[in-house]
C-alpha cells in the first residue's frame, strides 16, 4: 500500500475543516505543532490501495512571514514536502481565495484545487469553465461541497493521480510585469550562483520572489552579503518606480493574474444582491442590538454548559460515589488499609472530581461548534472587539474568559478559537483569574461564617470583580511586556451564514471530549495520587491515635503527613498574610482542586463530616478575624491554579514553562496583593 501525504491549505472560512472531516471521517487526531500553540489536525483514509494522510494546515490568506500560522503552513509545504497540496477554495469567492493559490503555485508542490461550496457558487449564478481554468493554473480542479460530502471520490482520485505524476516543471509562472521580472531575474542569478544550497531546496524563482518581498525568514537564511546587496538595490529601484513597497505591487500583480484567469473562465450571471446574511447582520452587528444579542447568546452558552450539564454531572458524581463505596466495601469497615484509601480517596475521588466535568465540556464545545459553523463567531468577535482591543486582546478572547467563570479547564481548551498565538497565550494565562465554580465552594464556606447577610452579596461580588480587574490588568501588562508586538488591527471576514452539519459539529465536540478524558486518565490521575500520598504519609504511630475518635484521628494523621509538615514549614512565610499553618495546609491541598480547601480545613479542625459545615464555621469564627477571612478569599481567588488547569495550560501551550510561569506568577501576585490587603487592613482594624 502506498502512503500519500496531503497538506490541506486554504483561506479561513473556505470550508476547509468540513472538507477535512469529509476526507478523513473519524480517523483523525488533534495535537499542537511542536512547541507552538497552533492546532495540528491530522487524519487518514484509504482510497483504492493508497493510504492517504491528510494534514489540515492553519487557515491563512497568504504565506508570508508575518504570522506564525502562515509560517507553519508554508514550512510544512517547503520542509515536509507533502506528496500533494490541496488548496481549498471557496468557489463563491474565487478571486480572493486564489491569492493563496498563486503563492502555492510559486512554491511548486504537486497541487490540486478543491473548488468548495460549489453549490453556493452555482446559486450565486457563477458558471465556471473548469477545464480552461485548470489549464491556466496548471493543476487539477475538483468541485466539492464539503458540508454535504460531495466530490470526495473525485478529489481523492485527483490526489492520487497528482501524487503519481510528482513534481513537474510549470509552463508558466505568475507574471509580475516587466520591471519586477527584470529584478527577479537579477536576484535569481545571484541566488543561483552564491546560495546553491538554498536554491536547491526552495527553487530560485520562489527565493527571488520572497527576497524581493523582503521576507524576514528568507532574508535571514541568506549567507552571502552580495546577494542581499543585489536585493536591496532592486528594492530601492522598484520603490522609485512604483512609490510603494515591492511586496504591495507584487500582491497587486498576483491579483491581476487571477482576475485575468477568471475573466476568461468564469461568468457571473447574477449581480450580488442583498441576501439573508445581510438581513441577519443588520440585527446582530447593529450598534444598538449587537451587544444585547451577543450577551443573550453567551448566556445561553453558559446556561447550557453549566445548568444543562448539571444533570449528567450529578449522574457521574453519583457513579463515582457509588464506585467509591463499592470499592471501599471490599475491605472490612474498620480496616485502615492504605490501599483502600489510595483507591477511594486518591484515584476515584481525584479522577472522578475531574471527569464529572465531561458533560460540561461536551456541551460547551457543542455550543462553540454551532457558533463557529453557523458563522456567528466572526460577528461575536467583532461586537466585543472594541472592548477587548483596549486590553490588547481579540474580540473572541471574551468567550474563553466567560467560560472561565465555570471552570478554567474547558476555558483554556476554548482558546483554540483564537488564531493568533500571542492572543491565545495571553488569554490562557489570565483565565484562572476568572473565578471558577470550584472556588465558589470556598466562598460559600467562608463568607457566611464571617459576614452578616447584608454584606455577603457585596463581598462575593467584590471577589469576582477583583478577579476580572486583575485579569484585565494582567492581560494588558503581558501584552506590553512578554507578548509585545503590534496588535494586528482587526480586519475580519464576515462569512455568509450557513446551516451547520451535524457530522462536523459532532466530530468537533467528540474530539474535545476525548482529549479531556485522556488528560484525566493520565497526568491528572498521577498528580491526584501524588497529592493523596502527601496528605497520608508518613502515617502516625498507632499509640498516637489511641482513644481518639475518627475526626481527631484524621486531624492527627494530616498534621503528621508531609502536607501538614509543609504547611507548618511555610507558616512563617504566610503569616504576614494573616494565615496559620492550618490554612497553609488547606491551601496546599487546594492545588489538587480548589474545593479540596474546604475538606482539608475541616480535617485540620477535626470538624467532622463535610456536610456539617456549621461546626467548621463556628471554629473558623473563633480563630480568625473577618480580615483574615477576606484574605483567604483573595488568596484562593488569585493564587496557584489547580492541577488540572496547570496540566491543561501545559498541554495547550505546548510547553510546561508557560504552565510554570502561570502557576508561579499567579501565586506571587496573590501573595503580594493579600499581603498588602492584610497589612493595610490591620492598620484600620
Amino acid at each position, binding site marked *: 500500500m502506498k502512503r500519500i501525504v496531503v497538506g490541506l491549505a486554504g483561506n479561513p472560512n473556505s470550508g476547509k475543516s468540513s472538507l477535512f472531516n469529509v476526507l478523513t471521517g473519524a480517523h483523525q487526531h488533534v495535537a499542537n505543532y511542536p512547541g507552538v500553540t497552533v492546532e495540528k489536525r491530522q487524519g487518514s483514509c484509504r482510497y483504492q490501495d493508497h493510504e492517504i494522510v491528510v494534514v489540515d494546515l492553519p487557515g491563512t*490568506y*497568504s504565506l508570508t512571514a*508575518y504570522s506564525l500560522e502562515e509560517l507553519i503552513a508554508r514550512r510544512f509545504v517547503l520542509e515536509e514536502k507533502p506528496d500533494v497540496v490541496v488548496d481549498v477554495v471557496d468557489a463563491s*469567492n474565487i478571486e480572493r481565495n486564489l491569492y493563496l493559490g498563486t503563492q502555492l503555485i510559486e512554491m511548486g508542490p504537486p497541487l490540486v484545487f478543491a473548488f468548495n461550496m460549489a453549490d453556493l457558487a452555482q446559486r450565486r449564478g457563477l458558471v465556471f469553465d473548469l477545464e480552461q481554468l485548470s489549464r491556466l493554473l496548471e493543476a487539477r480542479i475538483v468541485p466539492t461541497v464539503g458540508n454535504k460530502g460531495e466530490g470526495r471520490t473525485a478529489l481523492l482520485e485527483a490526489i492520487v493521480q497528482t501524487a503519481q505524476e510528482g513534481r513537474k516543471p510549470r509552463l508558466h509562472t505568475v507574471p509580475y510585469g516587466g520591471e519586477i521580472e527584470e529584478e527577479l531575474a537579477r536576484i535569481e542569478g545571484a541566488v543561483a550562483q552564491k546560495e546553491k544550497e538554498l536554491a536547491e531546496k526552495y527553487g530560485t524563482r520562489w527565493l527571488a520572489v520572497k527576497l524581493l518581498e523582503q521576507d524576514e525568514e528568507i532574508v535571514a537564511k541568506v549567507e552571502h552579503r552580495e546577494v542581499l546587496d543585489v536585493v536591496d538595490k532592486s528594492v530601492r529601484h522598484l520603490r522609485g518606480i512604483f512609490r510603494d513597497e515591492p*511586496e504591495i505591487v507584487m*500582491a497587486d500583480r498576483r491579483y491581476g493574474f487571477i482576475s485575468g484567469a477568471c475573466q476568461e473562465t468564469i461568468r457571473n450571471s447574477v449581480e450580488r444582491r442583498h441576501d439573508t446574511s445581510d438581513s441577519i447582520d443588520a440585527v446582530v*452587528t447593529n450598534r444598538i442590538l449587537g451587544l444585547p444579542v451577543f450577551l443573550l447568546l453567551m448566556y445561553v452558552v453558559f446556561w447550557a454548559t453549566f445548568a444543562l450539564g448539571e444533570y449528567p454531572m450529578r449522574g457521574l458524581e453519583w457513579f463515582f460515589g457509588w464506585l467509591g463505596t463499592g470499592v471501599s466495601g471490599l475491605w472490612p469497615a474498620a480496616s485502615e488499609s492504605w490501599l483502600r484509601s489510595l483507591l477511594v480517596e486518591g484515584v476515584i475521588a481525584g479522577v472522578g472530581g475531574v471527569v464529572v466535568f465531561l458533560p460540561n465540556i461536551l456541551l460547551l464545545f457543542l455550543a462553540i461548534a454551532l457558533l463557529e459553523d453557523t458563522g456567528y463567531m466572526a460577528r461575536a468577535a467583532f461586537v466585543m472587539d472594541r472592548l477587548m482591543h483596549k486590553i490588547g486582546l481579540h474580540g473572541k478572547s471574551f468567550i474563553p474568559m466567560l467560560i472561565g467563570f465555570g471552570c478554567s479547564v474547558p476555558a483554556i481548551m476554548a482558546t483554540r478559537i483564537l488564531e493568533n498565538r500571542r492572543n491565545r497565550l495571553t488569554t490562557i494565562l489570565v483565565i484562572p483569574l476568572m473565578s471558577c465554580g470550584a472556588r465558589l465552594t470556598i466562598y460559600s464556606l467562608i463568607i457566611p461564617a464571617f459576614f452578616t447577610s447584608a454584606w455577603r452579596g457585596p463581598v462575593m461580588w467584590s471577589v469576582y470583580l477583583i478577579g476580572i480587574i486583575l485579569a484585565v490588568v494582567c492581560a494588558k501588562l503581558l501584552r506590553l511586556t512578554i507578548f509585545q508586538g503590534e496588535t494586528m*488591527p482587526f*480586519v475580519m471576514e464576515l462569512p455568509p451564514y450557513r446551516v451547520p452539519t451535524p457530522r462536523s459539529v459532532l466530530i468537533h465536540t467528540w474530539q474535545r471530549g476525548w482529549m479531556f478524558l485522556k488528560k484525566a486518565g493520565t497526568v491528572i490521575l498521577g498528580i491526584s495520587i501524588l497529592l493523596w500520598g502527601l496528605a497520608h504519609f508518613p502515617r502516625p504511630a498507632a499509640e498516637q491515635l489511641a482513644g481518639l475518635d475518627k475526626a481527631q484521628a484524621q486531624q492527627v494523621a494530616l498534621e503528621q503527613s508531609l502536607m501538614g509538615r509543609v504547611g507548618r514549614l511555610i507558616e512563617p512565610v504566610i503569616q504576614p498574610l494573616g494565615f496559620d499553618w492550618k490554612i497553609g495546609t488547606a491551601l496546599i491541598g487546594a492545588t489538587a482542586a480548589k474545593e479540596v480547601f474546604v475538606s482539608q480545613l475541616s480535617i485540620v479542625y477535626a470538624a467532622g463530616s463535610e456536610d456539617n459545615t456549621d461546626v467548621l464555621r463556628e471554629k473558623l469564627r473563633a480563630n480568625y478575624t473577618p480580615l483574615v477571612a477576606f484574605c483567604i478569599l483573595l488568596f484562593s481567588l488569585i493564587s496557584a491554579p489547580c492541577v488540572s488547569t496547570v496540566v491543561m495550560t501545559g498541554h495547550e501551550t505546548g510547553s510546561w514553562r508557560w504552565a510554570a510561569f502561570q502557576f508561579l506568577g499567579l501565586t506571587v501576585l496573590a501573595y503580594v496583593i493579600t499581603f498588602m490587603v492584610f497589612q493595610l487592613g490591620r492598620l484600620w482594624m
Partner: protein
Amino acid sequence: MGKTVMEHSQVRSLSAVKTGEKARLVRVNASRGLNSRLASMGFVPGVEITVVSNGHPGPFVIVIKDVKMALGRGVAPKIMVN
C-alpha cells in the same frame, strides 16, 4: 493603476465614505505587516470598496471582491480611497 485616477479626484480616508457609497482604494498607510495582510485579503490599489455600514460609532463593514469584512477601530482611517 490608481495613480492616474488620483490626479482627477481627491484622496480621502475610507472613514469619510458614507454608508452605501463606493470608493476605489489608493493605498494603505500602515505598517508593512498590516499592509501585506490587507493586500492578501484583497486590499490592493484600484479595488472597489463598498461601505455597507460606516459606524459612527459602531461597526465598520465593507464589501471587497464580494467578501464582507469588518474593520476594527483605527483601520478605516488608514485606508486611503478616492
